[in-house]
């Protein structure tokens, strides 16, 4: 009888090597982020480096406080790294901009605007004509299947619908990179799986370079082509796993043997980090 514990798995052929031929879209180079807090200096990120390729869907998982959101904010230009650089298409990130769209966990829809006007917000800032704005907005509202709610206000929508509007709004400005900070975290399990399927469909129709943060290992595997596993605070990359499950993926994929192998591997890694934080 094997004496292995639940978390010691057999040597599964998990691949980590980078054989991606697509050009690099986002280059994260030794990013360090330190904060001044009341208790002194706190290091959120301690040298994070990896690349995201064109049209690649990358998920980042890790225990709470490992700096995932900080990393997203730095790529999005909402925060500056203490040292290290992030370049997008070769250009260093200077500040926020429509080339790096963000979908927040709290939706962040403008409550005084209708769904339509929310989606058009970024387009109007780009100086597009009203006809163009309408056309583009309609296209993405259709993509997230909210045509019947185009004139509704955010207060009339459920959490899942609000997040779909947020995704349409981010897609509409045609960003080079789409950053998503645990976008389904505030939703119930059922809505979450629904939105995962919708995001997969949307992404397959219009591929974007995606950087997606989540706590949910299953969610990370079903969506991503690569999963980045972070150490607990201070954040560094622990491991990167290739998800070699072909698209299109469905909720049934979550029961396939390969999925379960990957899930076991990744989850045990993340759980180790949860335990180390507990101490």
């Amino acid at each position, binding site marked *: 009888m094997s004496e292995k514990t639940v978390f010691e798995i057999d040597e599964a052929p998990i691949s980590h090597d980078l054989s991606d031929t697509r050009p690099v879209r986002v280059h994260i180079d030794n990013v360090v982020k330190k904060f001044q807090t009341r208790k002194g200096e706190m290091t959120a990120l301690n040298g994070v480096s990896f690349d995201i390729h064109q049209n690649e869907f990358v998920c980042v998982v890790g225990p709470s406080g490992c700096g995932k959101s900080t990393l997203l904010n730095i790529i*999005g*230009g*909402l925060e500056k790294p203490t040292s290290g650089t992030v370049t997008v298409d070769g250009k260093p990130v200077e*500040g*926020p*901009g*429509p080339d*790096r*769209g*963000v979908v*927040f966990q*709290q939706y*962040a*829809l*403008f*409550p*005084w*605007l209708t769904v339509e006007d929310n989606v058009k*917000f*970024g387009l109007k*800032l*780009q100086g597009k004509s009203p006809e163009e704005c309408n056309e583009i907005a309609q296209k993405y509202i259709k993509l997230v299947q909210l045509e019947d709610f185009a004139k509704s*206000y*955010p*207060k009339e929508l459920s959490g899942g619908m609000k997040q779909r509007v947020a995704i349409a*709004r*981010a897609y509409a*400005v045609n960003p080079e990179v789409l950053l998503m900070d645990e976008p389904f975290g505030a939703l119930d399990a059922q809505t979450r799986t629904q939105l995962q399927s919708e995001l997969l469909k949307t992404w397959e129709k219009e591929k974007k370079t995606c950087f997606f943060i989540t706590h949910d290992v299953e969610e990370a595997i079903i969506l991503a082509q690569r999963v980045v596993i972070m150490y607990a605070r201070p954040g560094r990359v622990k491991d990167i796993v290739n998800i070699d499950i072909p698209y299109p993926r469905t909720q049934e994929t979550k029961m396939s043997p390969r999925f379960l192998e990957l899930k076991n591997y990744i989850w045990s890694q993340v759980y180790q980090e949860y335990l180390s934080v507990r101490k």
Partner: protein
Amino acid sequence: MEEKKPSIWNKVPSWAWKLISLALAILVWVLASSKWPAVFASPAKVWEAFMKLSGNGTLWKNAWASVSRVLAGFGIAFVVSIPVAFLMAWYDPFRHIVEPWIQFIRNIPPLAYVFLIIAALGIGQTSKVTVIFIAAFLVMVVTIYQGVKGVDTTLIKAAKVLGAKQKDIFFKVIIPASTPFILVAARLGLSTSLTTLMASEIVGGDRGLGMMIQQASGYYQMDVVLLGIIMLGIIGIIFEKIVRYLEKRFTGWQETVQQ
């Protein structure tokens, strides 16, 4: 939980309840005026006074004097308090300089510093509008400042990542997000204006409802006194209804606790 059985009370429409409430109030009034005639003039007497003073124009002259002061004082205060509140929220040094004095003076009853203003500007229209302006401004600027400060930073981040520059953030996020607070401030400002109006008119004046009430009370004309008081109440309600309408129109998008 048992369903509420439909009783006779639920069948009466709400406008009927309002009518009943009005009838009850008049009943209380009649009872009070028969019990304490020296204090409460009867509805009949007040109606007579109304006919007389509105007929010879005195009532409307006084009412307009009061209303125009409130509108002028409140209006200027509203227009000034918005940019000042925004500056306070945007630039810390400005806030550090200005805020302590706003708080200090705000807590002084206008009835006290009205004497200063009268000494400076006399007992006419200007001094009244000035004291209303000061009182309303101080109340509104603080409320609007809180509103601007309270704008959800995630909304500002969302605007930034969609390409908004500082100017866009100000006009397209901060102003619409602060509108509910601006309207609450307007409501508070109007009610402050009405109270301050009384203070300013009682201290000295040529015309106005406050002055009318005070003079009538000196001659023991309690019917005119009550008439003036009721007029003020009606004016107050009209103002409030206007602001309520504006609130519904411009802030209907807010998510309320009930939802």
